[in-house]
């Protein structure tokens, strides 16, 4: 169970895994995630199901190595297995034919954006994808996003590829050109989602974001994942992960994501020390 059948390095510190998990491959929908535990002592780590293959019975996870757990998982190879994979969790994306939908993905956020774009395209929408990264080498899933959309734009912060600027700059220019956008989906680092929502708010474009607070169980049992949306406390793992971006308290979300910074640093340093040096491709 949970065997890694394919591993790829997409960019510096970003790994893609295809994992045997036939039942999850069958029951999952766009927008849902799994929780993975690498080994007996491991933390429960939520990761979006970036894609699935029902015939092969596999799901695809794409993640960035940011701390001990993701680094450890990134060191796994084809043939290894994760101890636990729970899912699919969270509510599926609400898909219908809205008309023209802009799907924006920033950094690693492109991975969770992928299945949503696929589903919205499937539902008959015209999907315009905007994907961005800090620079060309960090851009991921270009081909797959192209296939999942009708039109694709790329931006990089340093201008090494595509538009020089942020994904929001691309959206602004689309709007300026008179593109009528019926729905916007924005997934990425919190500042990117926050900026996207500020922009779309000005034009009254309904905007969906997918949130990534710290989680433990992922089933609504602990409340670790609570966020404030429209003034109410919601549990992201069961009420989300997608919410109306115009109502999300991003300031609180960022603070809550930082709750364990000292412990995370300690764990990472100890792990890197044990591994000799930072090298695990």
């Amino acid at each position, binding site marked *: 169970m949970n065997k890694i059948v394919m591993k790829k390095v997409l960019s510096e510190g970003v790994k893609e895994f295809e994992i045997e998990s036939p039942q999850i491959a069958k029951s999952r929908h766009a927008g849902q995630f799994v929780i993975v535990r690498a080994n007996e002592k491991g933390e429960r780590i939520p990761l979006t199901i970036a894609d699935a293959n029902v015939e092969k019975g596999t799901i695809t996870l794409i993640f960035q190595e940011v701390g001990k757990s993701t680094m450890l998982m990134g060191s796994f190879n084809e043939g290894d297995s994760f101890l636990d994979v729970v899912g699919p969790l969270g509510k599926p994306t609400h898909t219908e034919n809205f008309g023209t939908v802009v799907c924006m993905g920033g950094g690693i956020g492109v991975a969770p954006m992928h299945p949503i774009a696929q589903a919205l395209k499937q539902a008959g929408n015209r999907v315009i994808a905007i994907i961005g990264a800090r620079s060309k080498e960090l851009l991921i899933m270009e081909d797959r996003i192209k296939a999942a959309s009708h039109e694709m734009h790329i931006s990089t912060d340093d201008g090494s590829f595509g538009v020089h600027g942020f994904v929001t700059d691309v959206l602004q220019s689309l709007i300026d050109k008179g593109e009528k956008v019926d729905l916007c989906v924005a997934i990425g680092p919190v500042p990117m989602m926050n900026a996207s929502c500020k922009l779309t708010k000005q034009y009254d474009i309904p905007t969906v974001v997918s949130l990534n607070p710290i989680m433990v169980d992922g089933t609504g049992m*602990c409340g670790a994942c609570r966020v404030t949306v429209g003034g109410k406390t919601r549990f992201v793992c069961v009420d989300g992960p997608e919410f109306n971006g115009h109502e999300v308290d991003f300031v609180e979300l960022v603070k809550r994501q930082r709750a364990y910074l000292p412990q995370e640093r300690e764990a990472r340093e100890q792990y890197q020390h044990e591994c000799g040096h930072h090298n695990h491709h």
Partner: protein
Amino acid sequence: MPREKIPRQQMPEQEADVRRHNFKEVPFGFTPELAQREASRCLFCKKPKCVAGCPVNIDIPAFIRLIKEGDFDGAAKKLKEENALPAICGRVCPQEEQCEIVCVTGIKDEPVAIGRLERFAADYERDNNLVTIPKKAPATGKKAAIVGCGPAGLTVAGELAKLGHDVTIYEALHQPGGVLMYGIPEFRLPKAIVNAEVDYVKKLGVEIIYNAVIGRYLTVDELQGQYDSIFLGTGAGLPYFMNIPGENLNGVYSANEYLTRSNLMRAYLFPEYDTPVVQSKKVAVLGGGNVAMDSARTALRLGAEEVNIIYRRSRKEMPARIEEVHHAEEEGVVMQLLTNPTELLGDEEGWVKGMRCIRMELGEPDASGRRRPVPIEGSEFEIEVDTVVVSIGNGANPLIPQTTEGLDTNKWGNIIADDQTCVTSKPGVYAGGDIVIGAATVILAMGAGKQASQAMHRYMMGIPEPEPEPKDDKKDDKK
């Protein structure tokens, strides 16, 4: 014949100032001598009141007599006729309000320590490798699915397996036991004991599938296509918050999260284990039940210097077991009674740093018969805290009702099930434990599990339901 009066025997336990720094179990349990001495206090009543007080009707005088006679293994086997998890119930049952409160010895003296004796016999059997697997009935060819591996689900699974059915448990988490594993701390219920009891159920042939969140992984309707009957024992796992300002500050936990990080994920062994928990100095725990006591005592063991329990009523109304309150106070937990938090105060970075409270006084009795706490005007004050654990109760998780056709729930979201057979509004689907009656006790969950298993057996085998008891004929109008 005047009997020599033997006092109720105490269990030896770890000293308070030692145990508050470790997660090892607090009491060591009876020695055989202590157990036999305590057993000799029982009058072996012809019509034992104690048995009626036990939700699973253990033949209490019979097992105590075996202890008295020195047949400890026999006592354990006697217990297991009615209770598959005696080592657990002997530890966590609220004995003082169930079997022991009605014990006749308790009229003039203290009651017989039934729970401690139960624990002793079960521990003796396990520690001496005397556990045997009962004979199973011949295979029936029927399949049952159990959702949730807490005490309710484990009981149904064990009973159905003994009756010859093919049983599979689906559990959302990566470990069995439900609250026994993620909620009740190691120092009150060692996880090795929970594992041993789960092993026993597995040896009966029950298969457990972990990481299977029913409603998402498979729905109840999908399970119905594969199994002859289904039991839902999903517990009351949805934490309530106070809905006061500041509750989403960092350092504010639900008891479920705090205890899950510590118990299930072993945060007290961080960084050897990867899951962290905050390092606290001043902790406030909101609530007055067992869960609050467990959280407060866990906080001490995680290194907190000062732990306050904030409870809005008086000591008399505290729902926690007396023994737990007593243990907590011995360890240094401070009870701030008749006090209610009104707001949590934070710093720039979003960390909780203080709490505004108001003093309460008891007014007229409310619907529950308890005197209702009312705020005393102008009595607000602030205390300094860096961690707050909210343990004011749990409700029903809505996932299964939301994803199951035709499964009725009440206004609190609990699944509606018959109180005799545990059948729900969906034929072939049964439910019991906390998901039906709301957060309650291990033994009540097990009691429901036993009832459900009998009804499921009849349903799967096509045996008609027995005639309902004449006095409550209204609710039993089924096939």
